[in-house]
């Protein structure tokens, strides 16, 4: 909202305060000021000139050559094309060098052979209105040579207040409200304003019937003898300063009252209304009306209408209708000042895409006591401009409302206790009085009885704490002494999930070289369908940002998979992880809340390794290793890996190349904690990972809640061996169906307790091994805690292994 400091001075004397001080004091005590600006700064450059003489241009019918005194040593010769320019006028002169709105720089010119040293300006050229049928003729007493802004007292600083910081203050949506705040802040007097209705005739009042509770008060007043025309300059300038384009007297006046008191109002051409009076009712389904912007609007049962008889003439609180708007010849008015239900107005305005200055104010819930005062203000302002206007009949005041004024008790101690500021009872009472609250010290010590005027009562000030805020902001929050909390401090309860989350994030983002991402919680139907997850139950949004993006994630994996392609375009190796929440609607509790699960999602995609790469070169084995390392680092035993049976909820997983990890749960059982899988082959293309982006992709999901339920690692430190170990490399050529686990078991058995470690380092298939067979090569470390092993131990081991290999249907290939 824009506030003109010149306008404010109609209500409060702010003499001695710089505009910046005014703005800052509002920010600190009332509402956030977003900035200040100077109104029409070019009016300081444009000077008052006196047209000494006007001659017709010898070579152009429509041009005049004027001699204009602008206070300099010599008068200026200026060529002017306006029909209304004449000798003896005071005019606004933009001299050479002056820059007018629209970056229009005035230069020396020759117009049809005549020299011109400036421009006599029209209202439009000065950005002060739309009229362009002639130059702006100033008051005859304007001092020549003085800047127009100063000469006409138009200097103004405009303060922009953040509307959001006024949502709870309907009383501040006009200049008088802001002036009241400034009067309180700077301890000045709020100038009186006569808001009583002038005497009326005793004609028949306008009939008004309210058929909906959405209108709690409707004041209607007939006004006669109006002459439509342009507004006086003072009114035009105030409106211009706050960004309103002046139109004509009646529209301007209506706006003026709204911007002055915060109360929207509407003027109808009474002659264009039907005889049976005003009816306020809800629209009927399918009803249509044309608003005064010329748009036809389709209405619904939730829209409140002002009707003349049965004919809609305005959308209540939003916009007037085309059929009853005031015209150039209008002389008889119907003034409407009403209070409409904030929610009804807001919803209609949103639905119709028609948020107006009026609706913005009604949405805040205006003071029901205000309409009659606003009506009086409009009539009084109108008669100060056109004394001939008359009120033929008393106002109609319909509706069911009550003055909101109330009394609230305030304990001075409560103020001190909440603010932590040692204020005396008198300071508290004084602050409230400055804000125009009535304060009486009640029967009880330290208790103030505070009378809240109607315009502040209601939602704004109803409780003791509301008054604490009033006191605090007016004495100044900067007075509150800064303190540190004291009290007993126990360490916060142990938070296992937060700790585990940190451990996982640190490990993955470190040596494992994964990058942490945050993905949106909302997944599109399209993505879920691509991944084959569209039949799973999801928490759904009723109003997503875009069509179809309405599924609340039940796993982090889909969001991660959707991030791979763009990154693979730029990187050969992409490793992403996320730790976060997901929601399962099928497990809702008795209050209807879905079950929240916590998981870690990991995706690893890279350029596929060549055919001769080591058996464990791919992302799948790599990711399995990352998970093993992560679990070890987080303090768990090595997981048990088992083949995975396939699950609909993880349709992204390869049906065979997938392993599930489980850990002991501490109660003697095993608990599944995660899955590592190669990406389902059919998804490479749909995820954009085919052709030039062909990738080896592995995916893992760890269940944080499951991990927290598992037992931490049992064994701790293993002593460092005292005796040196013997290293042997062995290769077993076996049928390809014999698992590595069977070989390792055989090797350990053959070591008779001496096998300290056994690590597969090569898998070889080829002619030399035979069809359907493969060679598995291991590094084996033999060690004893009791002695240094000799060559004999190795020989014995190999002999046993030879037999074991034969038992497995194969042979020991080398030593």
């Amino acid at each position, binding site marked *: 909202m824009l506030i003109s400091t010149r306008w404010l001075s109609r209500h409060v004397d702010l003499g001695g305060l710089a505009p910046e001080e005014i703005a800052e004091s509002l920010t600190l005590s009332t509402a956030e000021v977003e900035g200040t600006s100077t109104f029409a700064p070019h009016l300081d450059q444009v000077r008052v000139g006196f047209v000494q003489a006007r001659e017709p241009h010898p070579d152009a019918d429509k041009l005049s050559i004027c001699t204009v005194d602008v206070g300099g040593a010599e008068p200026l010769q200026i060529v002017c094309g306006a029909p209304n320019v004449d000798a003896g006028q005071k005019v606004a002169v933009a001299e050479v060098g002056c820059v007018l709105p629209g970056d229009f720089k005035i230069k020396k010119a020759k117009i049809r052979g005549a020299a011109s040293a400036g421009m006599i300006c029209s209202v439009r050229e000065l950005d002060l209105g739309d009229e362009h049928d002639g130059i702006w003729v100033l008051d005859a007493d304007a001092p020549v040579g003085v800047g127009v802004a100063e000469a006409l007292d138009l200097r103004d600083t405009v303060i922009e207040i953040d509307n959001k910081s006024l949502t709870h203050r309907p009383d501040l949506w006009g200049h008088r409200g802001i002036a009241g705040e400034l009067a309180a802040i700077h301890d000045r007097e709020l100038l009186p304003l006569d808001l009583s209705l002038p005497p009326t005739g005793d004609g028949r009042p306008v009939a008004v019937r309210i058929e909906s509770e959405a209108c709690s008060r409707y004041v209607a007043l007939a006004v006669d003898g109006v002459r439509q025309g342009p507004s006086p300059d003072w009114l035009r300038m105030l409106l211009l300063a706050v960004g309103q384009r002046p139109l004509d007297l009646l529209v301007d006046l209506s706006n003026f009252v709204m911007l002055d008191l915060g109360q929207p109002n509407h003027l109808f051409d009474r002659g264009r209304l039907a005889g049976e009076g005003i009816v306020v009712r809800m629209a009927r389904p399918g009803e249509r009306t044309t608003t005064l912007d010329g748009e036809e609007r389709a209405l619904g049962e939730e829209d409140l209408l002002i009707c003349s008889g049965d004919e809609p003439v305005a959308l209540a609180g939003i916009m007037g209708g085309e059929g009853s708007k005031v015209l150039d010849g209008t002389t008889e008015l119907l003034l409407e000042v009403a209070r409409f239900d904030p929610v009804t107005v807001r919803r209609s305005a949103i639905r119709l895409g028609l948020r107006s200055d009026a609706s913005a104010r009604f949405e805040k819930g205006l003071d029901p006591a205000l309409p009659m005062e606003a009506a009086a203000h409009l009539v009084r302002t109108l008669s100060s401009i056109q004394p001939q206007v008359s009120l033929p009949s008393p106002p109609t005041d319909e509706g069911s409302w009550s003055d909101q004024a109330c009394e609230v008790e305030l304990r001075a101690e409560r103020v001190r*206790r909440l603010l*932590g*500021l040692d204020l005396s009872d008198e300071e508290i009472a004084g602050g409230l009085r400055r804000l125009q609250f009535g304060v009486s010290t009640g029967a009880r010590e330290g208790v103030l009885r505070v009378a809240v005027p109607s315009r502040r009562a209601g939602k704004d000030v109803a409780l003791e704490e509301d008054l604490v805020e009033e006191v605090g902001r007016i004495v100044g929050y900067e007075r*509150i002494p800064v303190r540190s909390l004291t009290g007993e*401090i126990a360490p*916060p309860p142990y938070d296992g999930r937060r700790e585990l989350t940190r451990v996982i994030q640190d490990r993955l983002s*470190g040596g494992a070289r994964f990058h942490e991402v*945050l993905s949106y919680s909302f997944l599109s139907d399209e993505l879920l369908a691509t991944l084959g997850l569209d039949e799973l139950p999801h928490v759904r949004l009723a109003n997503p940002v875009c069509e179809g993006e309405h599924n609340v994630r039940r796993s982090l994996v889909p969001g991660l998979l959707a991030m791979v392609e763009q*990154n693979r375009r730029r990187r050969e190796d992409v490793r992403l992880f996320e730790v976060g929440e997901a929601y399962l609607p099928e497990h809702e509790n008795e209050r209807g809340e879905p079950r929240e699960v916590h998981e870690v999602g990991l995706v690893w995609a890279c350029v596929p390794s060549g055919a001769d790469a080591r058996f464990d070169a791919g992302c799948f084995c790599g990711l399995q290793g990352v998970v093993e390392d992560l679990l070890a680092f987080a303090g768990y035993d090595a997981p048990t890996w088992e083949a995975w049976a396939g699950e609909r909820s993880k349709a992204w997983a390869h049906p065979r190349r997938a392993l599930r990890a489980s850990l002991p749960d501490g109660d003697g059982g095993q608990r599944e904690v995660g899955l590592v899988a190669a990406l389902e082959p059919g998804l490479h293309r749909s995820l954009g990972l085919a052709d030039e982006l062909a990738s080896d992709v592995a995916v893992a999901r760890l269940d944080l809640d499951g991990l927290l339920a598992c037992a931490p690692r049992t064994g701790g430190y293993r002593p460092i061996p005292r005796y040196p170990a013997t290293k042997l490399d062995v290769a077993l050529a076996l049928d390809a169906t014999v698992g590595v686990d069977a070989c390792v078991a055989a090797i350990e058995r053959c070591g008779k307790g001496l096998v300290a470690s056994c690590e597969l380092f090569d898998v070889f298939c080829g002619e030399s091994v035979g069809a359907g067979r493969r060679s598995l090569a291991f590094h084996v470390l033999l060690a004893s805690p009791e002695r240094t092993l000799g060559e004999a131990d190795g020989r014995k081991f190999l002999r046993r292994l030879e037999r074991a290999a034969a038992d497995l249907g194969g042979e020991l290939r080398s030593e």
Partner: protein
Amino acid sequence: MEERIGQLGTEARGRIEGAADAEALKTIERELLGKQGVLAEVLASIPGLEPAERPLVGRLANELKCELLGSLAARREALDQERLATDRACDDFDPTLPARRAVRGSLHPITRVRRKVEDVFTSMGYSILEGPQVELDYYNFQALNIPADHPAREMQDTFYCTGGGNLVMRTHTSPVQVRTMERAEPPYRVVSVGRVFRKEEQDATHDHTFHQVEGLVVGEDVTAGHLIGTLRALLARLFGRELDTRLRPGYFPFVEPGFELDVRCPFCEDGCRVCSRTTWIEFCGLGMVHPRVFAASDVDAERYTGFAFGFGLDRLTMMLLGIDDVRHFMAGDLRFLEQF
């Protein structure tokens, strides 16, 4: 024989002096003094000599052996020193060559700043809570004194879940206040950090998903002064020095009085882009817990007072790390993430 030993000595001295490196010296030592070395040969020949000659030859051979061991050691030492001198001189060092990049992953910038914030609060005795993102309307609005017809509850501001409308995507972390107060008796010192959702158009400073930090302290003597002190302590830790703050009125339905806290811009003296040339940065919405919020959770508002505050983690992260577009946070672009 004496002559032979003398000749051997001359040759050996020459070879030792001429040895180019430790490796050559080792070879020379083996050839001179090794089991099959020349000196061993001499010693082996002693039994075949005239008895009278034997002692002299033996002595000479031993003397030569001692001498050569000494020269070998001296030469070894000299070569060592030469090598060290060359190492130190390091003539081929090119200081402009780049380092070998240490390869690692990265923590999300939001995580980094979130941890900083959490650590400041845990050090002051706060518990860190999370609370559900799919939240009951009751906790997100009603219990926080946000009535049914409040504008924030309109469909264009809040994401509602289908099925009856009692579930929303939480629009702030404030529901955690109510959940905390419901669960236990005061005093509380809790901070809640997490994702929140508002139906906003996305641009450089707005996203429909962002992160908030919420704080709640309730006790028998908790005032607005403590609230300011707490946030000043946080800011001092985040920005590395004490920063001036100012409190001004602000409206949030679940606090009364309600404030906004501005912090003096840490990046400039007289206005910059970060503070929109005002030297103040809006940091936090805050206030004293509203009596209706206490009432919703059956906390005795006469006995206890409390404060609550909330601020955006995304904007703080952008400020601390100089990030200019909020949309980077959720885009998962490695070109962005790798920088942290």
